[in-house]
């Protein structure tokens, strides 16, 4: 056997792990989606599409989908606007603190989601940093509602996906070359025009990659919408959890989980196609 033919052997450990911790439970999920639920919530073993049919006939499922998509789109956009300049700076800087700065930028990734959310509660709450500052400046009299609603969830989500997007952008900036910007400058383009005509178009593949990642992460985020949403924010992820752990309604949770999984797969494929197209 040649070395290249033995190469796939390297995939065996990961594949086995995936089979045990991912594929097997997913099959269980798949099975549950075909069960039914009795009038008081007891699960009835069956091979039926009744649960799926009822779930997709419920207009709330459609609402949840729109909520998830909208929340993900807005959070991703905000995170992108913040992550892009940071990444560009990190990509470019010759500072000897570059490594340190990069670590600082992705540090939130290393903090538990729950801890991060409580941090936001402390900052955005009625008696949090933002509201007390605005109040002491006399800009507002009653606190702004910044948590336990869509605003809070959007802010929290944008922050939580930002580090991932910074990493994706840094990885995707491959074609970005300082010399190309210098060439544009030498040809008469101002710094802004250089950004618009050279830097931005060349970083589009990275942006597509990062946006795709951010969107998928937002779609599947549970902790942030749950803890910052104050029970007002209904998205697919929170609904799946609620159905499974509060309503004991595993079949509906399974149907929604599979539905979300398919949505995410489609989104990933689309974002990859877009990124690849832009790469050309």
């Amino acid at each position, binding site marked *: 056997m040649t070395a290249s033919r033995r190469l796939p052997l390297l995939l065996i450990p990961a594949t086995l792990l995936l089979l045990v911790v991912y594929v097997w439970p997913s099959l269980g999920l798949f099975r549950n989606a075909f069960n039914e639920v009795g009038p008081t919530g007891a699960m009835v073993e069956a091979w039926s599409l009744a649960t799926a049919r009822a779930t997709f006939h419920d207009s709330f499922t459609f609402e949840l989908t729109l909520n998830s998509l909208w929340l993900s789109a807005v959070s991703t956009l905000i995170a992108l606007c913040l992550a892009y300049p940071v990444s560009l700076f990190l990509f470019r800087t010759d500072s000897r603190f570059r490594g340190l700065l990069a670590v600082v930028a992705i540090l939130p990734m290393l903090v538990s989601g729950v801890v991060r959310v409580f941090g936001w509660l402390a900052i955005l709450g009625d008696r949090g940093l933002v509201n007390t500052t605005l109040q002491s400046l006399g800009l507002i009299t009653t606190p702004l509602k910044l948590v336990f609603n869509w605003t809070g969830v959007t802010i929290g989500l944008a922050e939580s996906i930002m580090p991932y997007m910074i990493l994706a952008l840094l990885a995707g900036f491959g074609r970005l070359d300082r*010399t190309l910007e*210098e*060439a544009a400058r*030498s040809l*008469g*383009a101002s*710094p802004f025009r*250089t950004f618009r*005509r050279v830097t931005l178009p*060349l970083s589009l593949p990275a942006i597509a990659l990062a946006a795709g990642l951010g969107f998928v992460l937002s779609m599947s985020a549970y902790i942030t919408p749950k803890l910052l949403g104050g029970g007002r924010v209904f998205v697919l992820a929170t609904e799946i959890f609620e159905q499974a752990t509060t309503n004991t309604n595993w079949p509906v949770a399974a149907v929604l989980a599979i539905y979300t999984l398919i949505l995410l797969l489609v989104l990933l494929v689309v974002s990859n196609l877009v990124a690849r197209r832009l790469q050309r």
Partner: protein
Amino acid sequence: MSYLELAGLQKRYGNSVAVDDVSLLVEQGEAVALLGPSGCGKTTTLRMLAGLIEPNHGTMTLDGSEITRLPAHKRNMGYVFQSYALFPHLSVGRNIAFGLEERGVSRAEIDKRVQEGLALVRLSGLEQRRPKELSGGQQQRVALARALVIQPSVLLLDESLSNLDAKLRDAMRHEIRSIQRTLGITTLFVTHDQVEALTMCDRIAVMHRGRIAQIGNAEDIYDRPATRFVAEFVGRANVLPLARDAQGRATVWEQPVPVEPTQNADLFVRPQRMRIVPVSEPAGGDTARLTGRVLRSVFVGDHVEVLVEGAGGQLTVEMPSGSTAPTEGTEVAVVWPRAESRVFAREAT
């Protein structure tokens, strides 16, 4: 007042000095090479001129007005980068049009000048291609056309030929030189390749450790190097350690040579300026002479290199090909005109 004047330019990065003190006058339409080994500060000088980096000290004046603090995009310099720096997301045509579009030139005029530019570099018909679909030489020419169509005040070429293979480089050398002459465009050409410098430029500034060691035309630099560095860097030279004999005469290989006796110095003679003659032939009044034994002769195509060994070392003589090389082991005399002798002190180390 010259067209382009650099005065006392200096660029430091922390404690290291990239460009120490560069002053240079360039006339309109002149092509000047900045020649030197890597790290001598030639590219830094070019980048300061283009406005891509700011000097710590010194001034730059173009056509009577100071441009030292002018941002790059307002300098109107055509810069051809070593890597060509073609925009990968734009077609060849859009690459060439870039500078014109930034100048707000009308569409019709842009189209016309892009066509002219393509014709100038003999790439007509390729405007729809993407840069990566072109060969290295073609990319080089697109970069040149892109820099030329903006009708720059100065054309700056940064090691522009170093990424091409030898044959293509030769062709491009002549092409660029003829375009430069035709357009009469003031050109600064950074290179580490002395052949490029010698063939493409009116004058050559040899740079060493952030300063200009010597500036002059090809003959000045080659035949009358001002410093030991120039003599060593440009062309080939036999470096023969000088000693002094009992009578106080300068000697090489324990044989007297007609130069001033100097402590800690070497005698530099170009191999092409030397001739091999039979030992029996007497020395002329204005020639220098050393005897030795032929170690070997190597045929290199356009000339023959003869390696001669003497009492204290070796030297190389270049004979025109076609002349009969002396057989190995023969005792010969090496002679050269006295005027071709240069003496440079050894650098204190």
